[in-house]
């Protein structure tokens, strides 16, 4: 297929662009296969380059022969284009609609994008499971790396290499896989160095209505327990939802078959509910009415903050179990959504390494990309889309929101700043990089993403980008950080949800000023140190200078 077929009018002059809190720009609108570009011919005005895949939905209006297209983006921005000429406007609108909803992965922009920067380190190779396992081996010899899934047959959504207890062989794993939803047998998610406790994750057990059991499954998870110790199974579903799952073949670990494990049920919402919540929240944020009551009740009705609280609470619970010396298995239904929210947040709480820029990338790689969170399905549409939601859900966005809540409560404990989280959010929905394409490692391998696209991390891990994303207040904190999950402590993430509804000029200036102060402070400290050294040297060289 040629993109040109979809573009009837590639270029219109005299188009006026309206953006929130920016002056309007008049210029030429161009459509390419992947971009909507508006450039004025003046030198110093900014151009607009918008990826079609970032467009969530468009609306068109006509007044006389002047057409207006309102473009609503997945990053929640809303822009308006005034296009002279009815036909041109219709053509443009049709093209945008067609190009923004292309669902052939191999036609996506990342396959066409060529980096304009020097790749210092290939992000595709930065976080390989093998390297992560080497780190693990320095701490414990109780685990092995299994290749049972090397051709993605045992579990299509798992990576080819997974860490499992040393004593469990691949045949056992195959049997366990047939007993877990989507073949997602329990694998190691996190090893807590301080006390050797572990967090595992999996899909739900397929007990069904007649209480099927699987001895191998029991053996596998018991193998992770120290003698005489009990573990906790954190089921992210309520007990009712979990019981109902039996009717569809799913189920829970019964106390009779898993006597060494205590099951705890939490209520982390599932995908369709979350998508609705996001839509309601964004609608509330864009509400133009001046009524405070209306805003607060809409915010409440969206339930978004409740989801944030539930997820954080569950993650704290998992972290608490581990910190107090018990191993944990986390799962919900598929084990690819709420499960990952909980396991990844628990690691942020427990493990200082996850709070660095690189550590966070590694966490996203391990616990989201390689763990098989279906990004393609979940991030196909965002809050504005009119099409019927299928598999869309802001699961990853909620995770980022929770990270932001912890970051806000511990402003000195993270190496990255809020802008890093916003950047990861944007790229998870639309990107020139291949990182978030596909639903699993298997799909990514099939598309040869590492060979054909650039990784987001290749771009991020360059000095100039890192500098922009670094938290100036960061001071490495080796402690476990317990966020407050009281509703009063959780805030709306303005940096994403109100980003386009408020002018951030003053806040940005203040931030710059703060960065400046901190840099100047470092400079002064260096100067003081070098002067001290000089003085010490002079004193040793010239005994006369020594003060009596």
């Amino acid at each position: 297929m040629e993109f040109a077929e979809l573009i009837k009018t590639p270029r219109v002059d005299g188009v006026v662009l309206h953006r929130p809190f920016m002056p309007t720009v008049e210029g030429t609108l161009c459509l390419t296969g992947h971009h909507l570009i508006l450039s004025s011919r003046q030198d110093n005005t900014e151009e607009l380059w918008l990826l079609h895949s970032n467009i969530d939905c468009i609306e068109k209006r006509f007044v006389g022969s002047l057409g207006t297209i309102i473009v609503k983006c997945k990053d929640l921005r809303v822009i308006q284009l005034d296009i002279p000429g009815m036909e041109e406007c219709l053509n443009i609108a049709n093209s945008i609609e067609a190009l923004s909803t292309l669902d052939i992965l191999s036609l996506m922009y990342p396959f066409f994008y060529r980096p304009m920067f020097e790749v210092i380190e290939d992000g595709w190779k930065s976080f390989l499971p093998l390297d992560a396992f080497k780190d693990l081996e320095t701490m414990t010899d109780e685990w092995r790396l299994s290749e049972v899934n090397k051709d993605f047959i045992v579990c299509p959504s798992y990576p080819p290499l997974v860490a499992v207890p040393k004593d469990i062989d691949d045949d056992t794993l195959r049997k366990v896989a047939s007993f877990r939803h989507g073949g997602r047998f329990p694998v190691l998610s996190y090893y807590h160095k301080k006390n050797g406790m572990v967090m595992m994750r999996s899909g739900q057990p397929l007990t069904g209505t007649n209480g099927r059991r699987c001895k191998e499954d029991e053996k596998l998870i018991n193998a992770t327990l120290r003698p005489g110790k009990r573990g906790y199974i954190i089921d992210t579903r309520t007990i009712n939802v979990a019981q109902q799952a039996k009717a569809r073949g799913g189920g829970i670990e019964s106390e009779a078959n898993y006597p060494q494990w205590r099951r705890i049920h939490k209520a982390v919402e599932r995908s369709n509910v979350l998508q609705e919540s996001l839509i309601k929240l964004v609608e509330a944020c864009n509400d133009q009415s001046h009524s405070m009551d209306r805003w607060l009740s809409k915010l409440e009705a969206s339930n978004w903050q409740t989801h944030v609280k539930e997820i954080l609470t569950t993650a704290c619970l998992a972290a608490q179990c581990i910190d107090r010396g018990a191993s944990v298995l986390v799962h919900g239904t598929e084990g690819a959504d709420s499960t990952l929210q909980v396991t990844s947040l628990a690691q942020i709480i427990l493990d200082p390494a996850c709070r660095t820029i690189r550590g966070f990338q590694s966490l996203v790689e391990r616990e989201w990309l390689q763990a098989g969170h279906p990004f393609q399905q979940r991030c196909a549409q965002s809050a504005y889309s009119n099409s019927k939601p299928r598999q869309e859900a802001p699961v990853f966005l909620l995770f980022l929101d929770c990270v932001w809540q912890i970051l806000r409560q511990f402003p000195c404990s993270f190496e990255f700043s809020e802008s890093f989280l916003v950047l990861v959010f944007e790229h998870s929905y639309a990107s020139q990089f291949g990182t978030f394409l596909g639903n699993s490692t298997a799909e990514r391998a099939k598309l040869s993403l590492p060979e054909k696209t650039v990784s987001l991390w290749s771009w991020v891990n360059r000095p100039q980008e890192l500098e922009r994303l670094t938290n100036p207040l960061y001071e490495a904190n080796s402690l476990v950080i317990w966020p407050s999950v009281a509703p009063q402590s959780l805030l709306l993430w303005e940096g994403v949800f109100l980003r386009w509804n408020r002018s951030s000029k003053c806040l940005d200036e203040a931030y710059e000023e703060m960065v400046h102060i901190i840099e100047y402070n470092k400079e002064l400290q260096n100067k003081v140190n070098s002067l001290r050294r000089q003085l010490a040297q002079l004193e040793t060289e010239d005994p006369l200078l020594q003060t009596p």
Partner: protein
Amino acid sequence: MEFSEYIKTANVEDVVLRQPLHPPGRGTLCITGHHLLFSDREEGSCQQVLLLLRNIDAIEKSGVCRLSGSSGTITIKCKDLRVLQLDIPGMEECLNIARSIETLSCLDSMSELYPFFYRPSNASLRDQWGLSSLERHYSQMKELHDRWRLSTVNRDFSVCPSYPQAVIVPKSTDDDMLEKVAKFRQGGRFPVLCYYHKKNGMVIMRSSQPLTGANRKRCREDEQLLQAVIDGSDKGYIIDTRSSQQALQARMTGGGLESKSCYSSWKRLQRQMERGKALQESLIKLVEACEDESNNMDRWLSKLENSKWLSHVQTALSTAGLLAECVERDGHSVLVHGSEGTDSTLLISTLAQLIMDPSCRTLEGFLTLLEREWVQAGHPFQQRCAHSAHSHARLQQESPVFLLLLDCVWQLWRQFPLALGFSEALLLRLATEAYASDYGTFLGNNQQERCALGVKENTHCLFQALLRPRERDCYSNPLYEHTELAIWPSVHPQSLQLWRGFFLRWTPQTHHLEEAQEEIRNMVIEWGKLALSSCPAST
């Protein structure tokens, strides 16, 4: 009267104190005439808590009888929203302590309050009291002298008990006229100048409501005074902080509004602002919501909404924005009043000045503004701040108008982090001091009462204390950069936030944020020292 009469048990050993953000401590509790003092005697820790009894809003007691003897628990709820708990061995001691606190925390006689006894070693009673006076303000504002004069018609407080001795009025109105106008305005609060906008010569005046009554009395002198204000320009605005209906109803009780026919060059804008009891109830609800421990997000958000506090913040800021818009953008003078002219009137005139006038946004400028527009202008602090959100006492004149002002200023501060020269810590300190203080600044309801009590001669001044070098470091905004521009706040509901620094001050997570701010402040202070110490070297 002797305080000792109220103190049956002055000392108790082995008391356990629980307070937010600290581990519990065991030590000695002392009650003095003005303070509760707890000192930790355990080895390795030296926790001391000195609490002004005046800061205590309410106490609750409960007793437990155990085999080892009875003990009692007193829960102390402070006006700064802190909640402390004391476990006291011995039921009788506990009851005695509770009784002393109850009596001493709400002494009626003002001259017995702590500011009259507070004698810090680093200050003398002969130090300058206050930052400025209207006389000084007037003499500094040369541009006023053409059309405005300083009147001392109120020198013995007989014309208007709640005004200071000197006020600024149009030059063409003599004192006789003012006396007549005073009779026509509630509480004698005739229109006076409160702000002169240098850029265009427009002014903000404030007063109380006109006493037109049911038969629509008029007062030529009042009309002439206001005419003199807009002399030369085509019209002025009157911003009435009540709804039209409220203003019309006020006629029944002798009040009223400026009719179109008598004040033809003035356009009246009615903007309803919540006042008095409703505002106090809103605060009570908000604090209750903040202390809710049910851990339920929906409940928190609906309680927050039901408290209406943020709506009040929004209304205050948008009315102030309207006022500033009339002056700065439209280029018209404005008269502001509600009923008494001592609450919402001051709230919006103060905020409008912060929006428009860069000189109010420095630390000194802001404190001077508060001194002029709240202390001298007669906001009845004694009545409004007698109790805060926890009190069980029947509400009388309490109303958190000043707290609402500080909240609105915080919203400005948050939206314009570079434009204000003071820190959030200053706003928190002021919120505490207004309710209970070592200093005399917020004592009494007006200047007349302060003169009668000899506040100036017998107490220390808070504003002076806040400007001492060490305090100045702590209360300045390290990011401050002077800007001549007006700072227009966004009043969209989405742009306004709960002032967590105050309302959730005693919960741990706010604490971390303070630490980050503290860090930056320390850096800036360090440079100051570096700059000083490197001076001789560079010369």
